[in-house]
C-alpha cells in the first residue's frame, strides 16, 4: 500500500512538473493574465483610486469586496457547522465527560508554559501588525486572524483549554465571529446609506474627514478588522471543539 502511495505521489509530481513547462514565463507581458485589460487597470489605477500601495489587498477588500465578504461568511459557516456537530446538547450535556481510553492527565509543563507566557503577547502584537499593515505589505484580516487565533491555541496547548477559555470562551467566540461579519456588512451598508452602492467605500468621505481615496483606504482597514474578528474566533472555536470532542474541558 505504501509503495502504491509513493508511486502515485511521484507520478503526480512528475505530471505537475511536466505541466509547469507550459506556464508563461515569469513576468511575461504576453501571458493571458498580463494581457487582459483588467489587470492593466488594476496595476495602473489602484494607487490612484485607493492610495493603497498593496494591489492584492485593494483587489480583495475593495474591487472584489463582495466576494471577500462571503468568503468570511464561509469561514463563519464552517465554524458553526463544526460546533453544531460536536457540541453536546440536551441530555447529552449532563453526561460525564467522555475520555479517550488511552488518555492520561498531564499537568502543564513548566518550561512550555513559561515560553508561552513570553511569546503570547508578542504574537498577539504581531497579529495586529499583520492586520494593520495589510495595505503596505502582504497580510490582512485572514492572516492576522490566523496568527491571533494561534496565540489563543498556544495558551490552550500549554495549560489546558479552560485557561484559554477564560480569555475567550467558545460562546463569546461565536458571538465575535458574528460581530466580524456585521462589521464588514455594516461598513458596506453604511456606504449604501450615504448614497453609494453596497461596499462603495468612497462615500464614507462624507462622514470621515478625508478624501474619497483615503476613505477607501480606511474602510479597507475596517473590513479587514471585521475579517480578523471572524477568523480569530472561528479558528479558536474549531480548535476547542475538535481537540476535546466538543466537551470543552481538559487539554488537547
Amino acid at each position, binding site marked *: 500500500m505504501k509503495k502504491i502511495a509513493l508511486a502515485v505521489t511521484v507520478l503526480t509530481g512528475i505530471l505537475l512538473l511536466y505541466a509547469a513547462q507550459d506556464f508563461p514565463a515569469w513576468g511575461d507581458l504576453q501571458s493571458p493574465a498580463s494581457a487582459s485589460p483588467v489587470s492593466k487597470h488594476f496595476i495602473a489605477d489602484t494607487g490612484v483610486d485607493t492610495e493603497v500601495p498593496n494591489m492584492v489587498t485593494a483587489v480583495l477588500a475593495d474591487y472584489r469586496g463582495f466576494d471577500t465578504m462571503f468568503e468570511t461568511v464561509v469561514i463563519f459557516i464552517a465554524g458553526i457547522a463544526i460546533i453544531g456537530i460536536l457540541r453536546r446538547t440536551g441530555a447529552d450535556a449532563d453526561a460525564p465527560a467522555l475520555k479517550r481510553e488511552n488518555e492520561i492527565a498531564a499537568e502543564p509543563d513548566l*518550561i512550555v508554559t513559561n515560553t508561552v507566557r*513570553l511569546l503570547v503577547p508578542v504574537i498577539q502584537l504581531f497579529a495586529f501588525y499583520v492586520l494593520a499593515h495589510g495595505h503596505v505589505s502582504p497580510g490582512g484580516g485572514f492572516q492576522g486572524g490566523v496568527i491571533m487565533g494561534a496565540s489563543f491555541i498556544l495558551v490552550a496547548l500549554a495549560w489546558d483549554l479552560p485557561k484559554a477559555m477564560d480569555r475567550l470562551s467558545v460562546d463569546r467566540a461565536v458571538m465575535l465571529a458574528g460581530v466580524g461579519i456585521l462589521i464588514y456588512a455594516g461598513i458596506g451598508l453604511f456606504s449604501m446609506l450615504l448614497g453609494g452602492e453596497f461596499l462603495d467605500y468612497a462615500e464614507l468621505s462624507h462622514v470621515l474627514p478625508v478624501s474619497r481615496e483615503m476613505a477607501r483606504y480606511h474602510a479597507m482597514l475596517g473590513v479587514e478588522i471585521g475579517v480578523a474578528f471572524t477568523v480569530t474566533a472561528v479558528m479558536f472555536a474549531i480548535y476547542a471543539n475538535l481537540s476535546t470532542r466538543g466537551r470543552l474541558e481538559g487539554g488537547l
Partner: protein
Amino acid sequence: MSMDVADSFVGGFSLDLGFLAEASVETIHSGLSALDVCGMILASVGLVFFLGAAVGLYRFPDFYTRMHAAGKGDTLSSLLILLGFGLITLDDFSMVGWLLVVKLLAIVLFIMLTSPTSTHALMRAGFEDGVEPVTKGSSSKNTKKEGES
C-alpha cells in the same frame, strides 16, 4: 565547501534560474562590500553547522541522540545564516535597513526561545511514552520500532 564548486553549481542553474537573476538585478548590487563578505562568511559557517546537524540526524543511533543534533545544530546555524543575510542586505545603513536587522534578530530570538522548548516537549513526550534511550554497550535495536508509538 569550495568556492569553485559553488560557482559551477550556480552556473549550472543559471539558465533555469535566469528569471531570478533578472528580478534581483536592480536590488543586489554587483560589487562586494566588506559587509557582504562578512555576511557570506557568517552564512557559510551557519551552513557548515547545519551540515553537522543534518548528518547527525542521519547517523545518530537513537531518538534522544538525534534530538541533540536537531536541537542544537538548528539554533546556531539559523542564527548565523539569518545574521549573515542581514549583513548582506544592510548596504546603506538606512533606518529601514536597521529595522530589517532588528526584525531578523527578532526571528533569531524567537528560534532561540522556541527551539529548546519544542526540543524539550518532544523529548519529554518520547521519554514518557517509553522510548528506550540507547546506553553504552547496547545497540540501536533497543529503540522502539514502528507501530508501537
